[in-house]
C-alpha cells in the first residue's frame, strides 16, 4: 500500500462516483468537437488526455506485451460547485451520442455542499421522487346508470372558475337592487400560470408565456391568466390591453411597484387580480431572492435598484404587525388603488395554520380568495432544507380549509386556490381535478408550465435545478442574452397554447364519465377514491382497492 500522503485526499475530496450525476462518455464515438464542454452550464466538463493500454499478443519474450495509446477523454469536475447537474444539455448537443449523464443514487456530495459555511441552495423543486399523493387519487364515480352519458368530444362543457369574492345570494340581490358595491370577480380558466417573476424568468420566456396566454384568450376563448411573481411587470405590458390577463404580485420587497403605481393612470384595463404574497410553499418563512447573476440592466430598471446586486425580500411585510392587520390593510389599500374593481387576495405557504388565515379572510369583505402554496411548490432560489422539508402538503390543507368553509356555508364566497406540485410528474389534469374535487376553485402551476411550454429539464431527482444561478441551459431562468436567446418566444407561445388545449381535452375526458358538464366539479368529493386507507380517511374520500 502506498503512503496516504501521496494520495490527494482532503475532507472534501470527492470522486466522480460521489456525485449525483455521472458522465458516461464513449471516446470511440467522440469526434472532439467540444460542443458538450462549451454548452455545459456548470462548466464541469474538461477534455483531457488519457492513456490506455492496448494489449497485444507477443510471442517473443524480449518485447513488452502491451502498447499504450493516448486519447482525449472527458473528465467531470468533482468540485461541489461545478458538479454535473444532470441537465443533459451535453447529450442534446452531441452530434454522435457520445455523452450522457447518468443518475447516481449513491451520491455523497451533499455532505460537502456546505462550503463557506453556507447551507446548500438551489432552484427548482422539492426532490421527492416518491409517488405523489395527487397522482394516486382516481375518479371513480362513473355515471353508468343513467344515460345518455356525456360525450367529451361532442357536448358542450362549462368549467371556468371564479376568482373573486362572491356574495351570499341574499346579499347579492339586496345590493343589486340598491345599486351598492358588488365585489369584483373574474371568470377564468381554473389552470393558472403561477407566479414567476420577471426577474426569475428570462425576457424570452416571459414574452412567450404572455403571447401564449393572449392567444388562448383572444383566439381560442380560453380565459387563461398568469401571475407575475414579485418584481413588477414591464411598462409596455402594464399599459397594454394584455394586462387583463395578468395577476400582479406584491411581496415583501415591494419590488417593481413604483413602476406599477406610476403606470396606473395610463392603464387601458385592469389587471386580472392582485396577489399579496405572504408565503411561498417552496420556502416558507423566506422572502424572495433574486441573486446578483440575474439582476440585469432591465431587471434593475424594473425593480428600481442598482445592477448586479443580490435582491432579497424580507421574510415578512415590514410595515405590519400581524397577518390579520396586514391582510386588512394591504387588501384594502390595493383594492382602493384600483377603485375596488380588482380582486385582491393573499398567497400563503401551506401550513397547519392556513385555516386561521382563511377565517380571517372570510370576515374581511374585501378579501377575494386564498391561494395556498404547498410544500411541493417550486422556486427560483431557496435553501435545500426549505425546499425539501419545510411546508405543508397541499391536499390536506385545501381539504381542511374547504370543509371548514362548508361548515359555515361559505364555500362559494371565498374561493381557495391550490398550488405546489400540481403536475410535478406530468399528470397536471389528474392532480388539478383531484384538488378541485377536494374543494379548490382552481390551481396555480409553475414548474409544469415551464416543463411543458419551454422544456425545463428539472426533475424530482435533482436534475438541473440551477435556476438560481442564471445559467439555465434552456434559457428559461437566465438573464444572460447569450443563454436566453436559445429560447424562441414564439415557440414557447405555441407550446403554451398546445398545453392549454390538451388540458381542456383531459378535463372533459374526466368530467364526461362523471356526468358533469355544467360547472366545474368543485367539492365533488364523492367522485374521488384512493387505494390508501389512511389518506382516504384523512381526506374524507373513498378508500378503493
Amino acid at each position, binding site marked *: 500500500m502506498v503512503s496516504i500522503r501521496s494520495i490527494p485526499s482532503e475532507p472534501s475530496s470527492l470522486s466522480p462516483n460521489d456525485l449525483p450525476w455521472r458522465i458516461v462518455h464513449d471516446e470511440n464515438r467522440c469526434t472532439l468537437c467540444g460542443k458538450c464542454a462549451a454548452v455545459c452550464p456548470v462548466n464541469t466538463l474538461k477534455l483531457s488526455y488519457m492513456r490506455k493500454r492496448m494489449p497485444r499478443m507477443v510471442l517473443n519474450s524480449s518485447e513488452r506485451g502491451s502498447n499504450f495509446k493516448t486519447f482525449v477523454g472527458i473528465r467531470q469536475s468533482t468540485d461541489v460547485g461545478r458538479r454535473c447537474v444532470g441537465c443533459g444539455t451535453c447529450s442534446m448537443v452531441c452530434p454522435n451520442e457520445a455523452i450522457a449523464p447518468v443518475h447516481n443514487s449513491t451520491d455523497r456530495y451533499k455532505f460537502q455542499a456546505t462550503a463557506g459555511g453556507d447551507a446548500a441552495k438551489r432552484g427548482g423543486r422539492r426532490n421527492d421522487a416518491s409517488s405523489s399523493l395527487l397522482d394516486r387519487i382516481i375518479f371513480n364515480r362513473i355515471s353508468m346508470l*343513467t344515460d345518455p352519458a356525456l360525450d367529451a368530444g361532442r357536448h358542450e362543457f362549462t368549467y371556468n372558475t371564479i376568482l373573486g369574492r362572491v356574495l351570499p345570494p341574499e346579499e347579492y340581490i339586496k345590493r343589486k*337592487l340598491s345599486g351598492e358595491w358588488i365585489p369584483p370577480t373574474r371568470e377564468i380558466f381554473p389552470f393558472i400560470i403561477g407566479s414567476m417573476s420577471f426577474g426569475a424568468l428570462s425576457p424570452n420566456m416571459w414574452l412567450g408565456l404572455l403571447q401564449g396566454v393572449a392567444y388562448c384568450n383572444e383566439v381560442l376563448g380560453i380565459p387563461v391568466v398568469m401571475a407575475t411573481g414579485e418584481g413588477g411587470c414591464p411598462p409596455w405590458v402594464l399599459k397594454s390591453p394584455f394586462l387583463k390577463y395578468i395577476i400582479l404580485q406584491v411581496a415583501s420587497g415591494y419590488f417593481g411597484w413604483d413602476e406599477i403605481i406610476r403606470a396606473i393612470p395610463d392603464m387601458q384595463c385592469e389587471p386580472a387580480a392582485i396577489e399579496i404574497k405572504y408565503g411561498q410553499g417552496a420556502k416558507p418563512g423566506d422572502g424572495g431572492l433574486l441573486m446578483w447573476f440575474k439582476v440585469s440592466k432591465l431587471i434593475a430598471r424594473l425593480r428600481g435598484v442598482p445592477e448586479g446586486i443580490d435582491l432579497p425580500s424580507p421574510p415578512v411585510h415590514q410595515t405590519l404587525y400581524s397577518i390579520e392587520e396586514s391582510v386588512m390593510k394591504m387588501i384594502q389599500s390595493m383594492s382602493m388603488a384600483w377603485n375596488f374593481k380588482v380582486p385582491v387576495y393573499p398567497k400563503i405557504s401551506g401550513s397547519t395554520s392556513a385555516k386561521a388565515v382563511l377565517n380571517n379572510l372570510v370576515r374581511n369583505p374585501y378579501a377575494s380568495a386564498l391561494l395556498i402554496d404547498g410544500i411541493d411548490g417550486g422556486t427560483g432560489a431557496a435553501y435545500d432544507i426549505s425546499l425539501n422539508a419545510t411546508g405543508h402538503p397541499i391536499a390536506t390543507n385545501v381539504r381542511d380549509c374547504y370543509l371548514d368553509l362548508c361548515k359555515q*356555508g361559505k*364555500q362559494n364566497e371565498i374561493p381557495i386556490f391550490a398550488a405546489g406540485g400540481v403536475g410535478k410528474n406530468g399528470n397536471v389534469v389528474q392532480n388539478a381535478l383531484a384538488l378541485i374535487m377536494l374543494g379548490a376553485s382552481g390551481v396555480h402551476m409553475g414548474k409544469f408550465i415551464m416543463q411543458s411550454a419551454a422544456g425545463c429539464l428539472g426533475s424530482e431527482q435533482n436534475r438541473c435545478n440551477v435556476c438560481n444561478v442564471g445559467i439555465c441551459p434552456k434559457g428559461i431562468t437566465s438573464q444572460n442574452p447569450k443563454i436566453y436567446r436559445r429560447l424562441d418566444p414564439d415557440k414557447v407561445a405555441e407550446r403554451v397554447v398546445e398545453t392549454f388545449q390538451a388540458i381542456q381535452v383531459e378535463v372533459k375526458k374526466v368530467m364526461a364519465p362523471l356526468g*358533469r358538464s*355544467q360547472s366545474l366539479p368543485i367539492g*365533488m368529493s364523492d*367522485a374521488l377514491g384512493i387505494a390508501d386507507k389512511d389518506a382516504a380517511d384523512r381526506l374524507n374520500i373513498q378508500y378503493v382497492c
Partner: protein
Amino acid sequence: MCRLAMKTASEAFSPFSVISAMEAMQEGYDGSGLGLLLRGLEFADYNYNGKDPVLSGIAHTPEALHRLDGIMEGKGFQLKYDHEFETDRSMVEAQDRFKYILRVYKQPDAWTSFTEEKIEEELLMTRIGIRLDGETHGADLTVFSLWPDVGMIKEVGWPLEIGKAFKLNEDRVKSRICFAQGRQNTNYGINLYACHPFFIQGVCTMTNGENTAFTPIKDWLSGKGFPGYMGYQSDSEVFAHILHYVTKQLGLPLQAYKHVMTPLSNAELAVHPQGDFLLGLRQVCRRLIIDGPNAVIGSLPGETCMIAMDAKKLRPMMIGGNPGEWAAASEMCGVDAMIPVRDRANDFQPMRQHTVIIPPDRQELEIWSQFDQFPQNQAA
C-alpha cells in the same frame, strides 16, 4: 331511469288515473318505489277544509304511533280526521307497516296570533321533530309532509300493486293535483325517504335522472343553516330545496329557478335583457347548478305546477291536456293514459330552455323560455 307522471285538474280526480299512467310506462322503473303527492285534497267521507294541516307518513309500530300522538298533542294539534286506508297488506312487500298515516289536524290554538311565516316555520319544525324522533327510535316513524292541503304516500314496490293495495281506485281520496314517480333505484339504498316526490314547506318536486352535482349542492345547502335542508337520502331531494330556496328564501319569481339550476352561458347572457343580473345570480348561486340528465316537475303553494329540463335536455317529457286539466309524463303513453281525449295540437315537449308553468286556473300552459325576460318583481 325513473318515470314521472303528473296531472292537475280543476275538478278533483282519483290518483289511480296517474298510477295507470305509471303502468303504461312500466319499462322505465324497477319497482323499487312509488311516491305520490296529492294536493287539493277531497275525501269521500270527510268534508276537508283546505287550511287544516295534513300529516302524511308511516308509523311502523304501535309505540311509534303512540309517540306520534304524544308529539302532536304536545304541540297542541287536534286530530280532526284520520283517513284509514283499507290496505291489502298481502300486496305490500314491506312487513313493518303498522299504520299508513293521512291525518287532518286542527292547527294549535296558540298559533292563531302567529304570522304566516312563523306558522310555516312551526310546521316545518314539527315535521322535522317527528322525523328525528323516528330516526332515534330505529326508524320506526316516517313522515313525508305536514302541510295544509298536501298528502303524500310512499311505498316500496310496483306502482300498480301499491295503488291496488291502498285501494286508491275506490275514490275515497281525490285531489286536484297528483304526482307519481316510479323509481329506478340508482345510487342509494332503497329507503322511503329516498322516494320522490320531495316536500318542503309547500314546495314539492319529483325528477327523473341523476343529479351528478349532488354532493357539492348538498354541502352548500346544509351549510345554509336552514333546518329543513337536511336528509338528502337521494340526489334528487336537492331539487325541492333549490326551488324552495329560490322562491321562498330569495323571493325570486318561479322563472328564476331555471336560471339557478341551469344557468345560461356567457354568450347567451350577453344578449339577454337581464344578462347583467343573471350573470351575477349565476355566480352567487353557482353551487346550486345541477348536472346530469334531469327532468323536474314541481308543485308550489296555490296549486301552481311547473316543469323544467336539464341544460342539455337529456330527459324526455311530454305535456298535454285541455283547459282545466293538464298532464305531464315521461312518455306520450303516460299522457294518453291520464288525458286520452285532448287537443293534441296543444301537446308540448319542453326543450332545454323551457319552464312550463301551469297556473292555478289551469286554462293554458305558460311556456316560458330562459332566453326571455322574466318577471321583475325583484330583479329590477
